């Protein structure tokens, strides 16, 4: 039955996340935007301890038969929206298995999930990360040049990865790992692409640099070099055999889970901007008169209503994509729809919020300008706007990547 409401116990838990966002993230939001590359250790350790106490799992895991939490992906996107309402950079910096964890959860065996993810429930803060992009390829992940060659009972990885979110934290702290996409057979094209778990401390893995960015500055974005980096054979996620039929569907399946999360991140930032503008207008005695003919509305009211509508659409599409994943349904189309809509909508919403505040919107005394900078990444990472449109188009037209590219 069609329903748009979370269960009461989820609503209750979301309130906790809302409090974290409001009381712990917002007060340090500006500080760690300005102090790029510094980490809010106190906040990170508190959050680590709290998430271990709560026993809540990693994002991206698929429905397990008989496993209790059946709406896991929906829950993840709901909490993501709350936390990114607080601060998207701080959210990305949180110690957890992150996108690397999502990859393990989506493509790993039960034993691998246990081995790589269990440490994230104990001990000191840990980070997981995913390394796909290279200096020579981004969206075209089939063109990956990093290689993984089998040598006895090990994989030997060579190559350079960039734009790896939380890459430095994952590489530098015990218990962390980076999931690296590499080709085991260049001649097989995309079918040769596999993913490998490279744990912290593996020799041959080096953080070469950490990027300076437009936004999400509290989160590190790293260049990682793999130079004869050796991992055991059972660190490959999915099957080691190259299946030219199946292509790289295993590794791509990760995106079905991560794209709704990125969409939810966008929505959190967009809602922050919308909430701020609503309060700002109210303080300045401007009310939004819903229900009126557009002819009677002021430009500000029309802008605000448009922002609100677009945010709502993005959220509904995102809920649907996550709900499908929870229900065990194939959601690539819907995940890309959510990501494409949310990424663009929130980019526009935050830009409009800056505009609506006039010169004050441009000032760093408010967070609105920061949200505009933070929002933009959501239309880029985990597949740009254009890549997602391409995926949607292929799905609705029934075209392969060879037929439509």
């Amino acid at each position, binding site marked *: 039955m069609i329903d748009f409401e979370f269960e009461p116990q989820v609503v209750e838990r979301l309130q906790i996340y809302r409090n974290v966002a409001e009381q712990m993230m917002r007060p340090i939001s500006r500080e760690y935007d300005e102090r790029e590359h510094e980490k809010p250790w106190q906040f990170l350790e508190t959050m680590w301890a709290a998430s271990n106490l709560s026993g809540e799992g990693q994002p991206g895991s698929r429905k397990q038969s008989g496993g209790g939490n059946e709406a896991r992906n929906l829950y993840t996107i709901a909490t993501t929206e709350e936390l990114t309402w607080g601060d998207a950079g701080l959210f990305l910096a949180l110690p957890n298995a992150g996108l690397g964890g999502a990859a393990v959860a989506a493509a790993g065996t039960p034993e691998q999930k246990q081995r790589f993810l269990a440490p994230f429930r104990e001990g000191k803060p840990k980070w997981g990360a995913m390394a796909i992009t290279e200096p020579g390829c981004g969206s075209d992940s089939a063109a990956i040049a990093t290689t993984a060659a089998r040598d006895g009972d090990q994989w030997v990885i060579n190559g350079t990865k960039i734009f790896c979110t939380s890459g430095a934290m994952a590489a530098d702290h015990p218990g962390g790992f980076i999931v690296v996409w590499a080709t085991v057979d260049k001649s097989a094209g995309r079918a040769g692409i596999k993913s490998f778990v490279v744990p912290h401390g593996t020799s041959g893995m080096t953080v070469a640099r950490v990027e300076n960015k437009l936004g999400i500055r509290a989160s590190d974005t790293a260049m990682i070099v793999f130079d004869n980096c050796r991992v055991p054979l059972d660190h490959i996620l999915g099957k080691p055999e190259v299946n030219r039929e199946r292509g790289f569907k295993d590794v791509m399946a990760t995106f079905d889970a991560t794209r709704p999360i990125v969409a939810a991140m966008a929505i959190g930032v967009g809602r922050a901007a919308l909430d701020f503008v609503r309060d700002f207008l109210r303080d300045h005695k401007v009310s939004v008169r819903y229900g009126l003919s557009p002819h009677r509305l002021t430009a500000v009211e029309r802008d605000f209503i448009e922002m609100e509508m677009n945010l709502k*659409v993005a959220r509904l599409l995102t809920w649907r994509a996550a709900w499908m994943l929870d229900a065990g349904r194939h959601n690539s189309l819907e995940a890309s729809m959510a990501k494409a809509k949310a990424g663009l909508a929130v980019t526009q919403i935050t830009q409009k919020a800056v505009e609506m505040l006039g010169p004050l919107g441009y000032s760093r005394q408010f967070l609105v300008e920061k949200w505009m900078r933070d929002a933009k990444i959501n239309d880029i990472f985990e597949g740009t706007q254009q890549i997602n449109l391409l995926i*949607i188009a292929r799905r609705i037209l029934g075209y392969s990547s060879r037929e439509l590219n």
Partner: protein
Amino acid sequence: MISFDPTEEQQMMRESVAGFARDELRPVARAVDEGGTIPASVAEKVAQLGLLRTWLPEQYGGDGADRSAVTGAMIVEELAWGDLALAAHLLSPRLFAFPILELGTASQRDRFLGHFAGSGFIAASAALTEPRFDFDLASLSTRAVAKHGEWLLDGVKCFVPLAREAEFILVYAGAGSEVAAFIVPRETPGLEISEREKNMGLKGLATHEITLTACRLPAEARLGSDAASGVVRLTSEMRVATAAIAAGVARAAFEYARDYAKERKAFGAPIATKQAIAFMLAEMAIEVDAMRLLAWEAGWHLDRGEDAAIESYLAKQYAAAAALKVTDNAVQVLGGHGYIREHPVELWLRNARGLAALDAIAIV
């Protein structure tokens, strides 16, 4: 618990309406647009769907099903996918009957609802829109004044569907600071129904301007006993219907453009293989789903007993604009062919434009 799955019952209803739209509405849609008349056979066949009777209480000869705005949104989307003019014609009696079902006094229900239980098509209508560029539900020019135990109605309404055929019209008017609705028989002195309007689209739907000049109505002509809050809900129900209808029209256009783009070749390949076209189609697909989800969500609020004033307003505003965009893109994908009346996309563009202008085209 969040879910996007229709119930089995909803799914069955959706499929039967979709089949009707495909088999009965699509084949005649162009002729209806060109000729301006609805074939009697369609109105006869629509009885099998029970678009109204299904929800009438058993005492009035109906099936007594619980009304649901979400179910309603699904039904009107499918009908509109078939053809909007036909859909609006077939749904018009609900504009009169559903408000009475929902808000009417016992005697109003007794008097009017039984008419709609039969198998024939009974024309009825509602008059909401007014011929003003800044028409607004919140400040109607049509006024109702209580005088000597009677109501006196004055004003002009436009785009009243089936006004000539309808025995009764539900007329919305400002009464003091509230909006109220009044049951106006066609024979009421002072009620003048003008010639059929000529509109850009929805050409198969007979609409009329009506003028009320000192129309005297008995006290019990006012819908409900205390209709103030109820009328807000009716407005929301009409807006949800418009949003869902927009999704139906847009989906029709999207599907046609998608299929055309896979057939039509340029530079040696189907135009759908070009990103410029493929991306337009991808965006259209997103917007169709967006409209539907907004309609469902607003309808869900209504089904919980809320007035859903903001949700339905947002859904309608969004969907009306998006339907225009999607149908316009469909014409664009077909290029010159889209402009020719051999293809239906130009018809859908004209029909979709009506959704932003009109407030009472259907009700869930």
